[in-house]
Structures are given as structure tokens and as C-alpha cells.
């Protein structure tokens, strides 16, 4: 296969764009896709203070590299989940990346700073590990962004993440979730920081290829708590369909955002957010879901220690 731009040997085929690229032209292609997404959805301006949620995986590290190459100044925030070797390896990849490029990285250590790990939260509550992790990440990243005076919280969700989430919400016909899934989640007066997803036009395979081409070392192994989880299964199914019909994932997601989602607008509702009685972060109830998770988990840990 030859690069569609220069006719050199291609290193990647992007079938949904009917294009093959050599390494330098693939990097250009990805930069253009992300820049286009940022402008199309008016995600942020050059003057905005940006903080990126980084996990040590391919998506967030690739995005940090892309945004830096595009000229944006972006700080990173890493949440240590307390998942053994997986967490220590992920942290090492993140720190090495930040140090090699002179980028600012804030680290929040869930076990040390808050008092529990994700495996402990999953064991102590009715939540799965992925659910406890998702809740903790949303809470801590928003808190760090708010306290740090950032305008925008940037996330590394890619096309496959968003298509798989949409697939799950369609299977459940969950109108509230369908109404809210978006490339930009606006800031809220109650304290939610504006959240954006600049990688939604880039497939998972392409962020991984970008990382390899750019020499970015990332955590390839899967989180041991996430093995066989539902979202990953949906991704495998969607990839099997994509193999037969290139462009299917992008059509599914962007067709929904452009044409499907307006039908669910009435379900967006106007949820009143108030300050959590315990931590002050925005919540729909009296005490936020994270404070309830923390309280339940800490009670279980201390009762185990006592017995």
C-alpha cells in the first residue's frame, strides 16, 4: 500500500477515509482531524486554561502530544486508582511522558489522598469496579480542574469509546443518557467545569498507531478490573461490523449527534444542581454519589480492620 499523499510505503490503512498514510502524513492527518473537531464544536480558545485527564493509556497520552504539537498549553491530571502493578505502570508511563516534554502533571493518589482504592470500593459497595472508577474519575478530575482555576477539562474519549457508549444507551433506550452524550459538556453554574472530547473523530486503532509512530510508551495491558466488561464487548462487536462496512462507527455516532439526538432534547431537562452537604461539589441530591461511595467504603475498611 502507498501513502495517498506522497506515494511512499504506507504504515496504516484508514478504510473509512479510503486512505493509506506513511508515518509523517498520518501524523498530519490526525493533527488535522483533532484541530477540525476543536473548531467545529468550539471546544476551547487558545487563551483558555486547559487540563487533561491522563491515565497512562494510548488515548490520553496521544492527545497530550497532539494538543502540544498543535500549540496548546495543556496541564495533566492523573488519578492513581490503587490497582496494583497496573496503576504503578500507568503512573510511570504518564510521568515519563510529562517529564520528557516538560509538561505539568498533577497526581491525585486515591488510596493516600482519599483513603481507598478502586478494588476496595468495588468490594465495599454495590458498584462494579468500572462504575466506581468512572465516578471517582469524574469527581476528582472536576475537583482538580475547579480548584486549579482551569476553564476546560479535556478528556481522551475516542470514536470507539463514544460509539460503544451510544450503542449501550440505544440497547437500553435510555433517553436521559442519549440526550446528554455530546462532544462538549458545557460548564454549569453549580461548579461543573466545561468538559470536551477532541478525539471523537479518531478511532481507537488510530490513537494507538499515532502513539507507536510518535514513540510514546503507554500501558498496553488491560486493567485487570475491566476484563470482559460490557463496553469492551460492544467495541469488539462494532469492530466486527466495521470490518465489513468501513465507516459504520463514525456514521453511527455522527449520524446520531447530527440527526438522532434532537429527538431526545426534551429529556435533557433542567436538573437543579446544589452543593453537596459534605464536599460542596455539585450534585442533584443532598450528598453527592462520590461522598456516599467514600463513606460506605471507609466504613467497610475500618470495620474489617477492627474485626
Amino acid at each position, binding site marked *: *500500500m502507498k501513502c495517498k499523499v506522497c506515494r511512499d510505503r504506507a504504515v*496504516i490503512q484508514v478504510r473509512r477515509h479510503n486512505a493509506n498514510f506513511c508515518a509523517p502524513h498520518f501524523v498530519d492527518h490526525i493533527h488535522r482531524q483533532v484541530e477540525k473537531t476543536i473548531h467545529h464544536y468550539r471546544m476551547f480558545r487558545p487563551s483558555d486554561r486547559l487540563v487533561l485527564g491522563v491515565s497512562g493509556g494510548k488515548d490520553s497520552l496521544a492527545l497530550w502530544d497532539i494538543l502540544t504539537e498543535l500549540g496548546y498549553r495543556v496541564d495533566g491530571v492523573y488519578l492513581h486508582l490503587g490497582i496494583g502493578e497496573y496503576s504503578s505502570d500507568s503512573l510511570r508511563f504518564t510521568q515519563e511522558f510529562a517529564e520528557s516534554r516538560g509538561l505539568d502533571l498533577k497526581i491525585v493518589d486515591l488510596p493516600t489522598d482519599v483513603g481507598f482504592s478502586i478494588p476496595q470500593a468495588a468490594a465495599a459497595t454495590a458498584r462494579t469496579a468500572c462504575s466506581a472508577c468512572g465516578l471517582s474519575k469524574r469527581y476528582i478530575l472536576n475537583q482538580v480542574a475547579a480548584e486549579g482555576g482551569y476553564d476546560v477539562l479535556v478528556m481522551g474519549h475516542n470514536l470507539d469509546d463514544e460509539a460503544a457508549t451510544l450503542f449501550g444507551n440505544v440497547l437500553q433506550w435510555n433517553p436521559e443518557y442519549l440526550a446528554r452524550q455530546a462532544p462538549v459538556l458545557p460548564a454549569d453554574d453549580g461548579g461543573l467545569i466545561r468538559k470536551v472530547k477532541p478525539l471523537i473523530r479518531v478511532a481507537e*486503532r488510530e490513537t494507538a498507531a499515532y502513539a507507536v509512530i510518535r514513540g510514546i510508551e503507554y500501558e*498496553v495491558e488491560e486493567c485487570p478490573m475491566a476484563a470482559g466488561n460490557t463496553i469492551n464487548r460492544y467495541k469488539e462487536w462494532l469492530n466486527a461490523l466495521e470490518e465489513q462496512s468501513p465507516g459504520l462507527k463514525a456514521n453511527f455516532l455522527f449520524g446520531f449527534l447530527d440527526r438522532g439526538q434532537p429527538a431526545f432534547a426534551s429529556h435533557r431537562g433542567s436538573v437543579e444542581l446544589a452543593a453537596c452537604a459534605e464536599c460542596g461539589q455539585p450534585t442533584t441530591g443532598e450528598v453527592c454519589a462520590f461522598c456516599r461511595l467514600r463513606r460506605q467504603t471507609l466504613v467497610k475498611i475500618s470495620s474489617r480492620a477492627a474485626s
Partner: protein
Amino acid sequence: MKVILRQPRREIEVEGVSKVADLFKQLDLVPESYLVIRDGELLTIDMPVGPDDVIELRPVISGGSP
């Protein structure tokens, strides 16, 4: 040839393969879910491969609840 698989990392020997595409057929894997890496370089599906090659098939699916 030696093929390195991940999640978890392990190695297998594969014979009778002359192109990357054959590798996916023989192992019954979906190309959209993997990168093929030889000596740090990405290979497209049409590339020839030989018995002395060491090939990594790196899965690209990751993440739990986004």
C-alpha cells in the same frame, strides 16, 4: 515466526504465513482491533512477513467505563 500477543503478554509460534492478512485469518482475529508491529514499525495488511520475523499483534481496545 514468533508472534507476540498482549493482554496478557505471551508468545506463540505461527507457520505457513506469508502476509499480514494470513496471520489474522489463521488466528481468527479482526484486523480493526489490532496493530501489527515489526521492529517498532507498523505493518499494513498487505505486507509480506517471513519465518524469521518477530511480530507483535497489539490490541487497541482499552478502557472500562469511559
